[in-house]
């Protein structure tokens, strides 16, 4: 019977080596080592042997069974590895196919640049102060040192409403007066974002509404050197560290001295191009020391307090940064434009 067993084991091993798939392997295991498997059944027949042969048979039988189990496991691992390889080959994807699209919302480009501006100024202690769109002539002009028929009014074509003395703000500067009235005599350090309106034709270069961000700092010790240092720090954070800036004399009714700040052209690096009209510089913001009249109108004594103010156009900044040539894109809200931000 031991011989029989040895032969059976040889046969099983031979068959095992020929097996190439896990299903046949399971069948093999049932056939030989299952509850009713041939090896199992032969082991059960140990009682048919004479008593003295039983230990040797038992020992050998168990050895063979273990060997077969081990062989089975080895074969199983081999087959599994082969099958996996096969599956990998079959399941390979064209990884260049497009991914399943996710619907992603975007903030409008103006919101994105406004938030960036808020963030930079917040880190310098300037907080956001917002005011109304529909304003009085008094706040939009008179308190800002722009009396009726003043030449400076020509710089800003105004939308007037049917209510006498009420207009759409042409700049966010009326907020400066509101803020001063609220803060005086405390120091002020704010930025004033908001939508402004000008009576213009709508063209690629001009719009009837646009955002503006103004800034205002008032204190007992604020000087033009601070204005230059602070605004240059801002411009370099927005446009790039070490970007040269320049300040040149200008005019705004609510500041004196007034200046325009230019930043070296971000398109051509200062060599001169169409965008910078071959000057190498881009006009980024207007600024100046707060005019004594405006300080007075805001409740600050100009002999004690000084301050600086500035203003910039987020849409213009976005256009320069991204090479946009048509300002109408902003309120046109074409998704093919907006989804690029």
């Amino acid at each position: 019977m031991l011989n029989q067993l040895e032969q059976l084991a040889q046969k099983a091993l031979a068959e095992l080596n020929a097996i190439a798939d896990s299903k046949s392997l399971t069948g093999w295991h049932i056939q030989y080592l299952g509850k009713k498997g041939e090896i199992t059944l032969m082991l059960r027949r140990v009682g048919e042997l004479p008593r003295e042969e039983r230990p040797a048979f038992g020992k050998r039988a168990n050895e063979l069974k273990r060997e077969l189990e081990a062989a089975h496991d080895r074969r199983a691992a081999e087959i599994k590895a082969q099958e996996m390889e096969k599956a990998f080959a079959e399941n390979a994807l064209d990884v260049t196919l497009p991914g399943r699209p996710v619907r992603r919302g975007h903030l409008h480009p103006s919101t994105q640049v406004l938030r960036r501006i808020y963030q930079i100024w917040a880190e310098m202690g300037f907080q956001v102060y917002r005011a109304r769109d529909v304003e009085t002539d008094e706040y939009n002009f008179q308190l800002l040192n722009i009396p009726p028929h003043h030449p400076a009014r020509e710089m800003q074509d105004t939308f007037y409403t049917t209510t006498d003395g009420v207009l759409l703000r042409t700049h966010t500067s009326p907020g400066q007066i509101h803020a001063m009235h609220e803060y005086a005599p405390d120091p002020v350090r704010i930025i004033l974002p908001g939508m402004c309106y000008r009576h213009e034709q709508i063209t690629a270069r001009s719009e009837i509404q646009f955002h503006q961000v103004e800034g205002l700092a008032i204190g007992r010790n604020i000087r033009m050197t601070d204005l230059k240092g602070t605004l240059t720090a801002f411009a370099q954070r927005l446009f790039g560290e070490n970007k040269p800036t320049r300040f040149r004399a200008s005019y705004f009714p609510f500041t004196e001295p007034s200046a325009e700040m230019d930043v070296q052209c971000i398109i051509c690096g200062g060599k001169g191009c169409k965008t910078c009209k071959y000057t190498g510089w881009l006009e980024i913001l207007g600024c100046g020391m707060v005019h004594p009249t405006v300080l007075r109108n805001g409740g600050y004594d100009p002999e004690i307090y000084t301050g600086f103010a500035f203003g910039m156009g987020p849409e213009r900044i976005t256009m320069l940064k991204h090479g946009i040539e048509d300002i109408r894109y902003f309120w046109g809200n074409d998704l093919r434009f907006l989804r690029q931000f």
Partner: protein
Amino acid sequence: MKVPLSWLKDFVDIEMSVPELAEMMTMAGMEVTHIDYIGLPESDLPWDREKLVLGHILRVEQHPNADKLVLATVDIGADEPETVVTGAPNLFPYIGQGDISALGLKSPFVMEGATVYDGHAKVPGKKMKLKGRAIRGIMNRHMLCSEKELGISDEHEGIMLMESDAAPGTPLVDILGDAVLEFDVLPNIARTTSILGVAREIAALTGKKLRYPDFTIEPTGKPLADRLTIETTVPELNPRFVGVLIEGIEIKPSPYWMQLRLRLAGMRPINNIVDVSNYVMLEIGQPNHAFDWDVLQARAAEYSDDGKVRIITRLAEPGEKVRTLDDEVREMPPSAVMVTDPKSALSIAGIMGGMESEVQPTSKNILIESAAWNFINIRQTATALKLHSEAGYRFSRGVHPAQAMLGALRAAKLIHELAGGVISADMVDNYPLPPETITLEISTADVTRLLGIELDRDTIRGYLEGLEFVCEPVGDDGLRVTVPDHRLDISADPVIGRADLVEEIVRMYGYDKIPHTELTDALPPQRNNPKLEWEMTLQDLLVDVGMQEIITYRLTTPEAEARLIPNGEPLDDSQYVALVNPSTADRRVMRRSLLNSVLEIAAANSRFTDELALFEVSAVFLPTENDVLPIEQTRAAMVLSGPRAPHNWQDGDAAPADFFDMKGIIESVLDGLHLPEVSYRPVEHPTFYPGRVAEVVSGKTVLGVLGQLHPQVVAAYELPEDTAVLAADLNVETLISLASDSYRVAPVPRFPAVQQDIAVVVDESVTAAELEAVIRKAGGFLLADVRLFDIYRGEQIGAGKKSMAYNLWFQAPDKTLNDKVVAKQQNKIVKALEKQLGAKLRS
């Protein structure tokens, strides 16, 4: 303002290059926006020094074979003169006059091989290289040319005929090469609306001396005072009026140099009198006007016994009309100041002369008016008349009354030189309101306080004196500064005037030299800005769920907003913040509805995409009776339409979004804002599809509305009609007032939940909200969560009924629940549903 460099150099030496000059002007507040180079190497057409030279015309003969051509013999400094064929009509008068060299007719001479502009080309800027060719049988190698061919101006009527002291053969670029700098005149720098004014700035900036024009005259004529009186009835609007008479003049073209300068500065030469008037205005900034004295005298004969001319300046009478020299009859606004005689108006003060008394080609005697006007008044009148003249341009920016006398002197001098005649022995100078001389004090400390730099007194004094301020030391570090009489922009208020002076000081010092410092002043108390912060959170939450932010025009029309109501009528303009002066008809009121704005953008985009998921958070404007200013209310409007998920190659098209997609977005956003007790109530709203619209409520406060748009509204906006268009409109201010950042967070459960499912059959009228409320109440604290997972309608359960299936999760904080407890709790729920809502458990 256009400034020819050659003219500027009359008054100040300029050693720097043109780009350096432009840069210096730009930095000092005169932003040069354009430079036109004429003949110089930087020019589009540099003039060849060898081939473009000055020619002297010696003789003009008829071309033997052509009526309309002449042969001109020209000295170009060579051994032999050259002969050229030309058709220039302005040479015809000299045909056959023999040797005309004594006339001194000079003209640019262009030699074969030189490049000039093609005078006949339709496209401006087209160049041509001169090639010799036979013209009607005579070989021609060279040419005489026009200003257009040289790129000086558009003038192409004949060849240039000029005077010049330069020798024939001199390179033309040395005589006429020039650069014209154009810069923007800011309101505070009105003094630079003249060549002299610009020269003064350049002199101050470069430390050079300013040369003045010659104002000396020889008044050899008869006295004027007994022939002319001037009355100014409104001195505050007309503080000065100077009159000077030149008798016996001859009207003719002005000399070439003057014509050229006028053209370079952008004005058209007319005749010597008009040209002098314009020239003086451009040169020193004082506009002036020439009257035909004989016309004034003829009128005087009708109104005065002694024949004396009476000029009266006064405000316009109501409805007063005047025919201006451009031959238009204009009705005067009430602000207009008129120069009149007792008969009628002669001209609109400071803006435009009248037709009748204008200088004619036959005029013999000329009265020059050189006056001062109030700049605000002139601006008001010019704006009302929509009449923008060079004189008005300058007067509306402010010309100091002291300049009026200089204008009269300079005009009289130049007229005498160019038109002959004698200047009246005296001038009539009516000066009722001389401005006060402004004197200010400034110290080195004042400069440091504003600029942050230390300048010593002498430096400050140097800067101010360069600009003709008169300075006198006061105390240790102060100056008493007297403002020169060409400036109106320096305030007499001691504090404001000081700021005005500091601006001059820093312009001279150089903005670029001011160092950079960090703010060291006290930081103000920092405050929160909850409204802004919550608005940003709201935007972020909407973007998170795939919505695209848009920003729209806040101006619209009542008609556009009426589309929100089926068959809606536009609200009256009085319900809106309406514009008096809209720039386009479709933007004439401030919006009352944000949803209208968002729907317009949705419709525009629907032409190329069916995937619409848009929102805007922005203001609407609601007029109120209590205030002249409207309520500005922040709202959030959303539009959703098209497939629920983006198109892709794998899954086929997703189902179209419906009411519940929009609701899901709102739920997600309100959850993100941690709004308490949010619920949705059926509501009637004309904009929406009846039965598919809900009010969004938090506690008892209505936040807004959401739903599917009414088909008529969809059609009115031309939105896609084959799929549902969902929209929502919420009051952001209410939303923010209820939002909270101090909500409580529940602990993570330590014991497992037991899930059970139940399905109940109820009448269609029973709402999901009612069912869930009963389930939650009956389930008590052990019911951790409820979720509807299926709705079934069908024959099995009968008409008018629906089966609602829920997952229920039971959970206790302190132990694992056993089946018995769960069964008991579930039973309670079923009983409550049966009792309160007539539900039947579906087995």
